[in-house]
């Protein structure tokens, strides 16, 4: 079977890993960096992803997209409260957020696909072969739309997504593989934007998830914001600078706030400096860990209620849990560790790198799928109750939360009116009584042959696969024939849209390659032109080194090269570079010899006794 890689597509950072024999291993880039910042910038210099895009955060804030994971599978109204924090413009089209960068409008799956492509090409450089298959992780508490959006992102990036795995369970796989532990473990995963808690039973190579809970909108980003709010308020009152007028200032403050937060995990206090716009001087401030902790205690405490609920659903008390494993960068905060320890009554394990363990687990799951690891099996659950809207706007549940997946449920449908040819089914996900309080996943239109009322009997099967993704099929009970079902996702891309995006991303990539080749050629041309100028100037100082014909020929070639730079064809530039090289290389050689002789002469003189 072809190679399958494991990908942690994170809010803040993303990673890619593979199984090196029996050891899951992160793939680093040439410089040894293991994390790819989940940032995409589309600037006049072109598309940038990762570290180079991170540098654009303060330079081109309105063209640099970060934390895109928070928008996956969501509509604009879901993120209304935090719109003010994002410097890029967001709109909505048919239930899908559109992120505007320059004249482009891109959906979150398309932006995520750019990050996935960066990871993909990193792995391709490493293996020297094309990578087509991947396991991608998502927060356990992601709903169907968010999972589907992640799968779409993979498709757009040219990846066959073999499995969507929950992040805490992936972490448990990596942890279990390494420690060969048995018993009950709790994985507490607080990342950049999401919180998950999963309770698992580890026994004889089986990883059975007993319960999971979480909050897909709680993480390190929110801690940064608390610091940011304080800093921006102080900057406004003392320096009169307002972020509305200076989006780059907001980004500058956000970046400094994030750095300060990270340092406060190991230091008791940090001093923060922010250069202010329009030569407004510098904002200086010292934050102590105590002060910071007071700002975020309530956020951390918001993780405790889902944790207790997961324990109740698993039929356990905190004391039953043998080990607590911490995952996600935010669990480096001492206050998080204290709260977790207080809840479980035992110190949590934090010897695994909380940034890497999820990607490592994804590689383990990839190996299980590829038939490499055969003695481990993950049995995961669906995090949220799945149901349909019934009379009076009530949700009737079909699959309860924490049901082991894959699972299915059947429901019989009939008609109320003679000759009725379709039935609408509204699929919901959530724990509330009323349909309107739950997440709308999709509306299905079931086609029914025209018959007298309540004669048709159509059995609809709702199947949740091992990815936690729903599919629906229908069968006419009388004839046994399959009935067609038309799906309208409430917050997602249609199959046609995904197809279009795959195509566009391919064209985009082609343009991208051409653009990159052009930029490289231009850079090379400019350095050659500079060298040529220098050579001509130097040659003029030395007697009899060059003829005026030769100089003229070189100048002519240089002018042609300069001219070629205005075009878009990198091959023309390359040809002009070649021509200039041919014209100037004899002179360059003579210059080289001349300086060599000079050097030798100097040496001999200086070395005379």
């Amino acid at each position, binding site marked *: 079977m072809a190679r399958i890689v494991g990908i942690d597509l994170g809010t803040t950072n993303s990673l890619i890993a593979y199984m090196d024999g029996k050891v899951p291993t992160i793939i680093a880039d040439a410089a040894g960096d293991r994390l790819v910042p989940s940032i995409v910038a589309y600037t006049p210099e072109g598309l940038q992803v990762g570290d180079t895009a991170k540098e654009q955060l303060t330079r081109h804030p309105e063209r640099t997209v970060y934390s895109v994971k928070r928008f996956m599978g969501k509509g604009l109204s879901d993120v209304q409260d935090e719109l003010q924090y994002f410097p890029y413009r967001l709109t909505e089209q048919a239930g899908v957020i559109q992120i505007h960068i320059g004249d482009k409008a891109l959906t979150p799956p398309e932006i995520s696909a750019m990050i996935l492509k960066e990871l993909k090409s990193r792995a391709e450089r490493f293996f020297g072969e094309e990578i087509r298959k991947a396991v991608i992780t998502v927060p356990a508490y992601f709903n169907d739309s968010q999972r589907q959006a992640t799968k779409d992102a993979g498709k757009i990036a040219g990846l066959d997504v073999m499995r969507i795995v929950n992040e805490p369970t992936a972490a448990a796989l990596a942890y279990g593989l390494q420690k060969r532990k048995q018993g009950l473990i709790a994985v507490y995963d607080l990342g950049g934007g999401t919180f998950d808690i999963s309770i698992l039973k580890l026994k004889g190579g089986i990883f059975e998830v007993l319960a999971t809970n979480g909050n897909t909108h709680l993480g390190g980003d929110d801690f940064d914001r608390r610091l940011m709010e304080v800093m921006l308020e102080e900057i406004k009152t003392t320096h009169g600078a307002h972020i509305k007028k200076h989006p780059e200032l907001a980004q500058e403050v956000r970046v400094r706030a994030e750095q300060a937060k990270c340092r406060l995990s190991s230091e008791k206090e940090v001093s923060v400096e922010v250069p202010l716009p329009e030569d407004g001087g510098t904002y200086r401030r010292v934050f102590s860990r105590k002060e910071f902790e007071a700002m975020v205690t309530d956020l951390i405490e918001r993780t405790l209620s889902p944790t207790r609920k997961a324990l109740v659903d698993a039929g356990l008390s905190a004391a039953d849990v043998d080990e607590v494993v911490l995952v996600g960068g935010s669990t480096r905060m001492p206050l998080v560790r204290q709260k977790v320890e207080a809840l479980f009554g035992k110190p949590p394990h934090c010897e695994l790198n909380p940034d890497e363990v999820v990607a490592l687990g994804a590689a383990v799951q990839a190996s299980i799928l590829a038939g490499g690891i055969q003695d481990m099996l*993950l049995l995961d659950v669906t995090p949220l109750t799945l149901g349909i809207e019934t009379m009076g706007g009530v949700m009737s549940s079909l699959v309860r939360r924490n049901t082991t997946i894959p699972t299915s449920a059947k429901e019989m449908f009939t008609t109320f009116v003679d000759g009725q040819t379709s039935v609408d089914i509204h699929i919901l996900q959530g724990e509330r009584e009323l349909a309107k309080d739950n997440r709308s996943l999709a509306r299905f239109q079931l086609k029914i042959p025209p018959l007298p009322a309540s004669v048709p009997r159509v059995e609809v099967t709702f199947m949740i696969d091992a990815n936690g993704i729903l599919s629906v099929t229908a069968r006419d009970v009388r004839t046994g024939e399959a009935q067609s079902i038309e799906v309208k996702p409430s917050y997602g891309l249609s199959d046609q849209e995904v197809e279009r995006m795959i195509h566009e991303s391919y064209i985009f990539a082609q343009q991208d390659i051409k653009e990159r080749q052009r930029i490289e050629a231009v850079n090379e041309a400019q350095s050659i032109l500079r060298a040529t100028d220098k050579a001509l100037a130097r040659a003029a100082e030395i007697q009899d080194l060059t003829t005026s014909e030769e100089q003229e020929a070189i100048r002519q070639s240089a002018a042609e090269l300069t001219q070629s730079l205005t075009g878009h064809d990198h091959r023309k530039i390359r040809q002009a570079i070649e021509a200039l090289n041919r014209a100037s290389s004899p002179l360059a050689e003579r210059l080289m010899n001349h300086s060599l002789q000079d050097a030798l002469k100097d040496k001999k003189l200086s070395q005379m006794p």
Partner: protein
Amino acid sequence: MAIVKKELPLARSMCWHCQSDIGGEYFCQQCVKVQPLSKDIDYFTALGLPRKLNIDTGMLETKFYEMSRAFHPDFYEGKSDMERAVSLANSATLNQAYSTLKSPIERVEYLLRLEAGSAKEIPGKAPTELFEILLEIQEQLEQLQTLKAQKGTGSEEIVGRLRAERGTLEAKRGALERRLAELFQLWDRLVDRSSSDQGQKTEKEQVLKQMRDIVSQRNYLNTMLANIAEALE
């Protein structure tokens, strides 16, 4: 004891792939392809158990893990579409079977569905001897809600009374569960005797009826206790 031929829990007796006799095994002995479980299979049969109510949950788990290793889609990634579809459907059935039989209450509800055609969720029924106290609780819950809405005083007294009444309900629930455990034993003995005479059939029906009644009362108490818990939060 007579040796009975293993019950066929499969959809068909011939392998869908090579047409050879599969003799009730999950995998064809000739071509090793996974075989689909029957659509009408009941959960006891799916897990290789008799229709009894006392189940060794440790053994149940072992069986579940063993069958998960046989059917889970993780092990069918490179296989044909048909094998993957069988793996998905079998896993879904297995997971539902395990979660249903794992919990004693869901187990008996399921048995009632199989044996007595009960609804999926047995509607709650108030235990008659608690009728008065249940009425009181209902009243107090309403009062508490009104007080909360108007931010009025005097809720402490109601809260105290609800706490005490909660104890009464919990005690009753405990008693119901103990009685249910006795009926589990009774049912299992009747299954073991496995005769087909009319007397035993009537006896079985009696036990089922009693169990149904207890489950129904317990469901009622559960809802009420959940309401109290919510009000006291």
